[in-house]
């Protein structure tokens, strides 16, 4: 039966080439946009270099103080003291990778300006996050303890600062008129990995800020690593319980919020959420609304064209009905036909998205961001195809099934 439908669908497609072209153009273009969008989203959400252990991790990035009576709000990154004094004592935390937000400094090499974004980290940062070391190694606890001026730099800054040399370990790089000894070079991190991108990594003990100051707000964020995936909810619970006991230490405020979030929530909290609300529902509904709005026009267009094409086939439908085909069979047939069309469009769309992604990557439109069509993107695209095929097929099919036999046959 399906084979028959398939044959009919292909025959119909061949009949009116112009309409086929319009339908395929609409479908493939719409799906291309959706697929490239999904590839972007996937790039942000799924584990990526150097943050591969997202399943075992929770992210702490902001500290919020509120005065609930006056409605004041003060939000910033978290202090090193908070992580060191409170969080590192939690039992379910295996390791904690702490890093400051990146600050920029300049270096001038051969009359050319180089902007160096640098971050201060602790030693476990290198164990929690899996940076690819192209040469050398990270700094260890000993070096941090002695506040040694050592640096891990990125491949890009190695090239910009030292030029095309094979090895730079042991050489000195200068920022803010301080010389740091390079002990390792890591592969570049995409800009989308906001918390982990940087050109130079330094031990937090060489930081000019007083990292021991017992404040809650500061310039650091952290990744908490649990022993196993199953331990993560326990870690989250323990963190929340600990937060209840942390003193606010500031009379102007009466509420304190700081959250250990799963990765997705850690992103949405910054965009649509606040200290209390992770903002996931809001972010997801905005996204869904945007996608539906975007799909509206191509869908109406496709429905329009589909109806036109069905009317063309009224005699065929009349004959089938006259010979006893039920409305359901006809609806079913038409939806299958529409699905076949959608999947053809989907294949074309896949081709276009592969091309677009290829150009996106080869022109390097966003620094260091490499998109790819992987399995999950394909899965989402498949879902989008099914969804699109269904919504654009149901109404025309219903219209078709209601055609009056006599009228349909007489029309010819």
């Amino acid at each position, binding site marked *: 039966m399906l084979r028959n439908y398939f044959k009919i669908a292909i025959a119909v497609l061949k009949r009116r080439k112009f309409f086929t072209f319009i339908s395929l153009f609409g479908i493939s273009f719409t799906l291309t946009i959706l697929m490239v969008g999904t590839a972007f989203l996937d790039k942000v959400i799924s584990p990526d270099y150097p943050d591969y252990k997202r399943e075992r991790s929770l992210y702490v990035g902001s500290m919020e103080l509120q005065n609930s009576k006056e409605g004041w709000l003060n939000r910033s990154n978290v202090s090193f003291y908070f992580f060191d004094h409170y969080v590192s004592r939690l039992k379910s935390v295996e390791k904690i990778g702490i890093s400051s937000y990146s600050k920029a400094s300049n270096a001038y090499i051969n009359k050319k300006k180089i902007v160096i974004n640098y971050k201060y980290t602790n030693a476990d940062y290198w164990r929690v996050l899996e940076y690819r070391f192209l040469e050398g190694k990270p700094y260890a606890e000993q070096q941090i303890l002695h506040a040694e001026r050592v640096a891990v730099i990125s491949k890009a800054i190695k090239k910009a600062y030292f030029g095309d040399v094979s090895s730079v370990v042991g050489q000195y790089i200068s920022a803010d008129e301080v010389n740091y000894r390079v002990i390792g070079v890591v592969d570049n991190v995409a800009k989308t990995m906001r918390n982990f991108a940087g050109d130079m990594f330094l031990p937090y003990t060489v930081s000019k800020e007083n990292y021991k100051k017992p404040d809650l707000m500061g310039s650091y964020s952290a990744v908490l690593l649990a022993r196993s995936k199953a331990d993560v909810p326990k870690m989250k619970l323990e963190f929340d319980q600990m937060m209840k006991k942390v003193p606010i230490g500031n009379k102007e405020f009466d509420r304190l919020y700081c959250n250990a979030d799963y990765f997705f929530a850690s992103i949405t909290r910054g965009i649509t959420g606040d200290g209390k609300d992770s903002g996931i529902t809001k972010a997801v509904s905005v996204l869904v609304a945007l996608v539906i709005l975007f799909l509206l026009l191509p869908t*109406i267009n496709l429905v329009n064209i589909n109806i*036109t094409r069905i009317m063309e086939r009224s005699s065929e439908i009349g004959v089938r009905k006259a010979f006893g085909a039920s409305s359901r069979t006809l609806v079913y047939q038409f939806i299958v036909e529409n699905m076949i069309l959608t999947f053809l469009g989907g294949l074309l769309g896949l081709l276009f998205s592969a091309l677009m992604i290829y150009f996106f990557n080869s022109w390097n439109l966003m620094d260091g961001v490499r998109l790819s069509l992987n399995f999950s993107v394909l899965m989402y695209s498949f879902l989008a195809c099914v969804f699109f095929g269904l919504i654009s097929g149901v109404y025309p099919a219903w219209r078709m099934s209601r055609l009056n036999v006599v009228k349909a046959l007489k029309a010819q």
Partner: protein
Amino acid sequence: MVKHLFKLIWNKRRHNFLFLSEILVSFLVIFAVFSFLVYYYMNYRKPMGLAYDRVWSVNYNSNQQSKNMDSLVIFYEDLQKALKSMPMVEAVSYTSNNFPYSSGIMTTGLSPAGKKVYNVNNYMVGDDYNKVWKMTLLEGRWFNPEDKVARNKAIIINESLRKEIFGKAPAIGKSVGDYEDKGKLKIIGVVQDFKANGDFWPAGYALFSPLDSGYLKHTNVLLVKVRPEADAGFESSLYKFMASRLKNSSIEIQHLSEMRDAKNEQTIIPMLIFMIIASFLIINVALGLFGVLWYNINQRRGEIGLRRALGASGNSVSGQLISESLILATMSLAVGCFFALQFPIMNVFNVPSIVYVIAIFLSIAFIYVLVFVCALYPGKQAAAIHPAVALHEE
């Protein structure tokens, strides 16, 4: 004639429902695109109000250890003097973090008699701030040293804020209440609006107040206007100078022209993506309309043949079909305008109504052109129908 056409359409209203909704949605998409474009263009045409070329910002983290207020003030004054004496430097000024093209925002409110004005950008500025930016003073004067010791704090406001508070009445010498309406601020000057958020955004309300010594320890940006000869060599020596003066600090020098480009890109790139997607949608719709009209006309060969046989000219037949499509479009546009008009009426997003009105007119024109172009070829085809052939088919 139009009444007759309307009747024809009304008889097929169910048939035309999808066609109508398609035009309606396209209209709304186009309206959104044009609203953005008109808004950006109108802002783009306004004068910049400041000169950003050859202005550099020097960021330093001010964790100067000195607890003593006086020595801190002396330190910063010395630093400024030393910079100003450099041969390549035209002007130097301290500023709060919200200088033009930066990402910093600092707003406050004002309480002029009987009302409140919110969202006033509060710029804390050093003595030579106006020289760095080459700002245009419209009325009154710039700050002088006596303002720092005056009882009522002196402020300078921009054109937009002046218009909001005083309208056409004189502003110089007037006092307004501050945010909580406790202190009084005396207006000593009015400057031309400057677009601090890039070329495509309005200047908004702004007030400038002198950066006093108490605020110095929160300050971490210096603006430097350099001479045309200043090159990377000078930048590097400026950097070294700053790093040696501010020992415990990290220094970053940025060029305001680059910051402006970055700021503009934040507007242009999303707009470009939006326009590309919208234009693909419109191509899609145009092809769809074209196909549907073409098909409809083929369905009506009998009717058209009859009209031709009764003596209607080819032009009047194609004219009828095109005007039918345009009337259909008008029906959608009427509904679309109803929705679109809500934007200026409700003053959505605080955008001037004129922007929405222009956008509505442009979108209407666009949709008419689109429908006309899509109906042109099918109409021509209809005109070419030979009555004998068409009637023979029946």
